[in-house]
């Protein structure tokens, strides 16, 4: 495991994101209401740069003909095939086994860092 400083805290305000290149890969850092999350910029489906996708809400599991909208601001929708992922876990909304790789992220002295496992 290695810890990489990738941004200053002020670079990524709440609702914002920053895509960084670190340890040979692209990582998207998302700020959801003050908490940071780091996702690898590769969709589990066909490899699109998923972190370029829209941050949206989605329709939650429901009864037939019922629509419940939620998770506003927490869902990352891939720019290609619109697969939706929960930014806080990396899990897709349709199958928890289908997920974007996530990394631990922390802030020390105003510096944002992600921890990437060794290859």
């Amino acid at each position, binding site marked *: 495991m290695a810890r990489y400083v990738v941004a200053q805290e002020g670079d990524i305000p709440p609702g914002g994101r920053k895509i960084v290149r670190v340890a040979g890969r692209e990582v998207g850092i998302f700020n959801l209401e003050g908490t940071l999350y780091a996702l690898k910029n590769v969709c589990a489906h*066909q490899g699109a740069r998923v972190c370029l*996708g829209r941050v949206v809400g989605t329709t939650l599991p429901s009864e037939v003909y019922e629509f419940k909208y939620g998770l506003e601001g927490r869902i990352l*929708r891939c*720019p*290609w*095939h*619109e697969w939706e992922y929960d930014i806080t876990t990396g899990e897709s909304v349709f199958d928890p086994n289908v997920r974007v790789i996530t990394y631990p992220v922390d802030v020390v002295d105003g510096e944002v860092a992600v921890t990437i496992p060794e290859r």
Partner: protein
Amino acid sequence: MTAPNIIIKEDSMALAVEPREATFAERAAQLRLIDTDVHNDLPGLNELRPFLAKQWHPWLDNGGPGQAARYYANMGSGRMDDAIREEDGLAAGDPDWVVQQLMTKYRIDIGILTGSIIGLSIQHDYRFQAAIASAYNEWTLEKWVRPFTCYKGSIACAVQDPEASAREIRRLGDDPGMVQVLLASAARIPYGNKFYWPIYAAAVEHGLPVAVHVGSEGTGIANAPTGVGFPSTYLEFHTDHSQTMMAHCVSLITEGTFEEFPTLKFAFIEGGTCWAPYVMGRLDRLYPALKAETPYLKRRPSEYILDNCYFSTQPIEEPDNHAHLLQMLAIMKAEKTVLFASDYPHWDFDNPLMAFNFFPADLKRRIFVENALEMYGPRLLATHGRA
């Protein structure tokens, strides 16, 4: 002719010391990928004005004739959001942008342009649509094909008027920049019907394959998108695309179209692949019993599929077990019948660098390059720049 082509790299010294043009086989061997479905955007009908006769200009001046538009759509933009260019808000409005976003990034040598107005064939005013088709074809050649070596065009035509379509095919049939005739799968009558045969006569006369591309089903004067009517969701609509493809394919076979035009090659674009094995099996099973009805069919129905028909990959089926897809492809002899297509820049794009990783290398080579070369023939590599 020593004009550089897409195969010979600019830094190749061979070209400088040996002015002989590479043979078809030499150039074919260098190819890595042919994309049979690239949707270049038409920014607006007004772009066609320079190519459109004066009598049609009032339509453009007054905001267009009210083209019937497809009303099924997904909740996103319908395009690859990461490919949209800021200047024009389009993902494929500029040919250089597509070189950069598609051709270079995914190592594609040749892109067959399928455009964005195949729906003209289900508009009500077939006279105006025939004029639009001609103008659009000129625009495609002028703006996309001739300035580049990597693009080839499709001849759009107002399919609802087969005689006008045949005239348009004959007008452009010898242009090396055009490699096929393009029809929409949305239709009023299945494509094997004799009504359409003037189109096929013109196509085979010029050695052009005919491609049918999904889109516009249930719009304008076309029939409903499925045999049982109108779906309510895009998920349903999109899944049912293979229905219209199947109906056209079965019609082409059973009407004897491939007996009348034995050299006609027909490509089914964006309708999926796995329905073809079903059609082959079903027709071959019924054919001996029902042969009296179609005595003009000289061969087992599946042979027409294997010899006259091609199917594009996108959107490739993605079963959990990859072996299942490979089995289906084996039944339809994909090593002869399947073509790669990306559908760039539409949202259901297939990434050629990832989606086929489990395919055996020789099959992938057939699908990526050789089947397209066989279907389109030498004109796919012919020089087509301005004289």
